[in-house]
């Protein structure tokens, strides 16, 4: 672990990050790293600060401390600048543009970059065929699972360096969740896309994850490889339910 400066193999590095909403502080000095090509998973109870961590990375809240993306200090940047720097964030509740069509949603994912979107559209339509069937339909008319696929495909259209996923399984049927995580694991393996995932379904998330963090009241209390966390007695009891 690096204590000072940026390590070349780190995509994301948070050092002593504090932040919250108005006067109430949620994050109390958070240290966290995600290596390039890695899937990192954040586990934690409700209110531990998981969503706030992702919001801090995208400058959606005021923060103190250092946030580095691929060595560059991005703390204090505006949200749209962080997005343009290659961070794609799929927020909780998906954040789809519900009154726009599926294809318009996908085009919006890539709105910050120039060039022909055709090949990327074909590609993600191939991975998520349901979206191709519904490309001219309003996004809000689709089921929750389809909208989650759309939100992820939209994020991938940006060709991001780092993908942030906030509770992708929220409100989805178990089978749909399983399919979603299979796709995510596949994308990580094939593209080497770095991901930071906040997920209630700890066992599923740790299956595709390389590294895990356990967050409690705005601090990292446990970290380690996904295998280590999955074997940890406390983690098993608190988050895996056995």
């Amino acid at each position, binding site marked *: 672990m690096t204590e000072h400066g940026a390590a070349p193999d780190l995509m994301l590095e948070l050092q002593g990050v504090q932040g919250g909403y108005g006067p109430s502080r949620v994050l109390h000095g958070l240290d966290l790293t995600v290596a390039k090509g890695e899937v990192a998973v954040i586990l934690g109870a409700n209110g531990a600060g998981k969503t706030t961590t992702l919001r801090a990375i995208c400058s959606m809240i005021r923060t103190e401390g250092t946030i580095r993306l691929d060595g560059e200090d991005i703390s204090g940047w505006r949200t749209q600048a962080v997005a*343009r720097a290659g961070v794609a964030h799929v*927020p909780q509740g998906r954040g789809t543009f519900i009154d726009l069509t599926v294809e318009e949603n996908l085009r919006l994912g890539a*709105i910050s970059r120039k060039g022909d979107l055709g090949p990327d559209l074909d590609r993600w339509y191939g991975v998520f065929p349901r979206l191709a069937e519904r490309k001219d339909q309003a996004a809000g008319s689709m089921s929750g699972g389809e909208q989650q696929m759309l939100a992820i495909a939209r994020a991938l259209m940006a060709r991001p360096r780092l993908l942030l996923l906030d509770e992708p399984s929220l409100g989805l049927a178990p089978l749909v969740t399983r399919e979603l995580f299979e796709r995510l694991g596949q994308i990580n393996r094939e593209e080497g896309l770095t991901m930071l995932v906040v997920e209630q379904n700890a066992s599923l998330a740790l299956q595709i994850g390389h590294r895990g963090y356990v967050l409690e009241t705005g601090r990292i209390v446990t970290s380690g490889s996904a295998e280590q966390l999955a074997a940890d007695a406390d983690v098993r009891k608190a988050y895996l339910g056995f």
Partner: protein
Amino acid sequence: MSLFFSQVFNGVGNGVVYASVALALVLIFRTTGLLNFAQGEMALFSTYFTWKLTAQGLPIAAAIGVSMVVSFVAGALIERVLIRPVEAARNPLNVVIVTLGMFLAFNSLAQLVFGTNPQQMPSLFPAGKLGSLNIQKSTVGLGVVLVIECVLLWLLLQKTRIGLALRAVSSNPESSRLVGINTGNMLMLGWGLAAALGAVAGSLVAAKGTGFDASLMQQVLLYSFAGAALGGFDSPLGAVVGGLVVGIAEALTVQYVHALQGITIIVPLVLILVVLLVRPNGLFGRKIVERV
């Protein structure tokens, strides 16, 4: 019967003006969720500006063009300087108060700068009626201008990247920032476009009567609000249809309902009331469903 039709066409002549101002109202409502009560007075200022240019010898078409560009810039600046700092407080009522304040300020400012005497705006369209038909050429001209405005707006919103970004901001500002859209620039663009539309509407309506003064847009704004409410505040198509319906209703009331002679202003007010009672989202408006 021919009297009836000539009244309908009179109504269409007014209706296209209401429709263009309603379109400007809808544009701002769609991008910012605000009702801009100062829309009419912003247009009044633009109208005086157009008139001043023609008084300097510029042809009317060129004057309207210059006025549109200047109004676009002014509209964008108003969003940046007057609206956005107030919006940061996240209380929609504050912004409403600011637009009401702008309503009074722009009206007084126009009188201060351009005087209180009625002025004559040259018409963009030839005088007289079209062939043997009982339709004013200016009515046809206004209709053509409205159609051009609608087509250009449609192309901008539906066929360009910047239009897609504009619609994204009105649909979900937070997600728009997350895909890298500069939402502030889009809001400035929306206000600029609305101001430019207002400049066209004001300059054309000012040429219709015998001289205009600072009260030019007040009645127009009321009728346009009625049109936008009728069509649905989030629907450009609704704004156009609503504006035309209000214009026709006004003309027919003047002709046929003698009891309302002199108080036709009641027509838009009753229309707003009825629409709010029967269809709160307007004829073409979407029902907002809050998702939890």
